């Protein structure tokens, strides 16, 4: 169905507080690296897809206008696609369908965020409606913590066990980030550090929470003919899926999270994956919060419902485990939101093409990438593989 599509180039900026560059310069930094990686010039690009978080984040709206030059858009068709935190996956999917339609052979997909320009938590509070949700959904941690509590109670998970598992996830990812030259937070933390970090919203503590980062990510997608011609090792897109659920948080069951579950199922079906834990070699799960990451493991079928902490503590998802998750350190260590979901795809593509450097999972052939957005409302998944 549709033409085959490959990731043939990826580019990322340095992340962190980037006072040294303007917003368009930051974007250009990622674009430049991706074009060099793909071995193409701006002239070769036939279409551009871009997206970020809402304009309140940086105070500039509809940035596909502002970044026209930085994104090599001039004279080209452009699509601006956005879906909150899941934007990174949504723009990748748009690029995928564009190439799959046969109307373009090379599409540039770019996500970006310069969060130190504004107030991320204030921005996210404006996602809620002004009457029912806004009064109590102060930014992201409040919402995600409620979800964590719901999940623990629903499956009778002892709080101590979940705490222990969350701490291990935090330690693992912070260690991984030390191996990732692009990562923002590079610190060595211990289990004790994670368990005793200041509380943000109980039971979530500081080291369970992602930072705010500046950064951009660019990915070049190519058709089969083009990829085979100009790329030695393309990462083939095997499946994509996106789902969204109710706007009002209280209306859906966030402990089993239908949108995450079905987005993954949709992608698995296309990729022919029946047993994800066995078949996937690595996963880049969108993990701004450690507790939430455990819910994703269950939604994606990596382990049975309510059993994530057991699997985490067994080391299943650590670097040496059966299914290493977020060898890049994930969103927990680097989070320029509009770019974060696309970084997951870029990392997954690097893993299956053996380009992940010190964070490479040996022999990875099939990888999952993912992003989440809204008030726990949206989930998008892309599967990439080394083989067509």
């Amino acid at each position, binding site marked *: *169905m*549709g*033409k085959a599509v490959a990731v043939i180039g990826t580019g990322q900026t340095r992340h962190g507080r980037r006072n040294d560059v*303007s917003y368009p310069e930051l974007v250009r930094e990622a674009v430049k690296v991706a074009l060099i990686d793909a071995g193409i010039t701006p002239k070769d690009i036939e279409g*551009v897809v871009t997206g970020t*978080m*809402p*304009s*309140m984040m940086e*105070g*500039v*709206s*509809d940035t*596909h*206008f*502002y*970044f*026209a*030059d930085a994104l090599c*858009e*001039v*004279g*080209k*068709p*452009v*699509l*601006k*696609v*956005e*879906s*909150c935190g899941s934007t990174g996956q*949504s723009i990748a999917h*748009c690029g995928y*369908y*564009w190439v*799959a*339609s*046969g*109307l373009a052979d090379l599409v540039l997909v770019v996500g970006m965020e310069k969060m130190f320009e504004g107030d991320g938590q204030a*921005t*996210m509070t*404006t*996602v809620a*409606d*002004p009457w029912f949700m806004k009064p109590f959904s102060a930014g992201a941690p409040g919402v995600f913590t409620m979800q964590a509590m719901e999940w623990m109670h629903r499956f009778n998970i002892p709080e101590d066990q979940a705490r222990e598992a969350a701490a291990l996830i935090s330690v693992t990812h912070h260690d991984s980030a030390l191996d990732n030259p692009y990562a923002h937070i590079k610190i060595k933390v211990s289990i004790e550090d994670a368990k005793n970090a200041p509380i943000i919203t109980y039971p979530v503590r500081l080291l369970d929470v992602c930072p705010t980062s500046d950064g951009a990510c660019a990915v070049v997608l190519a058709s089969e003919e083009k990829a085979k011609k100009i790329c030695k090792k393309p990462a083939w897109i095997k499946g994509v*899926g*996106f*789902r*969204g*659920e*109710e*706007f009002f948080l209280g209306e859906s069951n966030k402990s089993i999270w239908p*949108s995450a579950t*079905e987005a993954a199922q*949709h992608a698995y079906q296309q990729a022919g994956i029946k047993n994800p834990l066995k078949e996937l070699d690595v996963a880049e799960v969108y993990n701004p919060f450690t507790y939430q990451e455990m819910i994703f493991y269950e939604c994606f079928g990596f382990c049975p419902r309510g059993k994530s902490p057991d699997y985490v503590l067994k080391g299943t998802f650590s670097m040496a485990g059966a299914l290493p998750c977020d060898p890049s350190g994930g969103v927990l260590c680097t989070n320029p939101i509009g770019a974060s979901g696309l970084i997951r795809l870029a990392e997954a593509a690097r893993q299956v093409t053996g380009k992940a450097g010190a964070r490479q999972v040996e022999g990875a052939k099939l990888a999952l990438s993912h992003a989440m*957005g*809204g*008030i726990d*409302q*949206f989930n998008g998944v892309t599967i990439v593989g080394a083989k067509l």
Partner: protein
Amino acid sequence: MRKVAITRFAQSPGAESRENLMDFTYRVSKEVLDKAGLKRSEVGCVMIASSDVFHSGLSCANAVDWDGSGAFMIEGTRTEDSMYAVIYACLRILSGHFDTVLVTSIIKGSENPDNDTLTGFFADPFYMRPLGINETTAAAIQMREYLQRYKITEEQCAKVAVKNLGNALFNPNAHIRKRVTVDDVLKSGTVSDPLKSLECAPKSEGVASVLLAAEDQAKKFTDKPVWIKGFGSSMDHFNLGDRNLLNGQLPVAARRAYQMAGIRNPRKEIDLAELCEPYAFQELLWCEKLGFCGEGEGGKLIDSGATQMNGTLPVNPSGGVLAMNPYVSRGLYRVIEAAMQIRGRAGEHQVDKKVKTALAHGTCGFAGQSHSLVILEG
């Protein structure tokens, strides 16, 4: 390549609605599905068009729009502009992954600040914003250049407002509907010299929804499918000073769409056009760039009467954006109006001539930084 059809559509009126955003959206999306006889759960994909800035003070426009547009737990996404949504929906169908896409575009202007308070946020914070550049001031610069370069007169520009607001009298959904004279327009007060008040689009409500389907499915939903024969878009530089405001990217976008649709002589082969003209003079300029007349001849074109409702090439029989400006949705309204004319079911604003091929155009950004167009055929 697969063929994509417009099967069913619905639109809200442009005047202020008392409904809340979610109900307002739901009613229009539901109308389309009911007309098509399609269950929500059978829709392949929902494509929302809405904007973070033009969105009742809410961020992440897709979040609140999701339920009302019918996207709950089916594949879906959101684009920032409704013409982008139509194009992306076509790509999804052409990819073979989806047979049906419901495109719903959403804006409730009555809950928003003035358009230009919001378009001012397109400007970068360092150079353009301190100068007060927004969509209207940028258009005023473009208009001044247009008048001077080609000796177009202010009267000729005003005629566009006279024509379009007059056409709107016959369109029950239009927001501003009144008979005005050239003199009324010229005396309507300067907004940003040389633009007069009646030459600038209002701020309107507008939820519009279209069900697109692949060829083999289309007949299930309608007896009169309208085919999308081609589409094209292009982006210009950002800084106004880097651009040729009188020769931007519209010819590039048009070339793409014409090539896809197999159109060689647009003036002859296109029967009707619905153009996005938030500022009256832009209709004349866009007509030139689309190949409806020669360079600098936009003034002569309106003088000739060809673009009137009963002319040889009617432009904006719906009243266009001057009569109704639901910012994000305005492109999709053009597509729907063009499709209605092709089906011969536009009601009182149906043009006299037989319409086989029609063009729908959308633009956003300063002075037409981004242009998109779609060619439709009966």
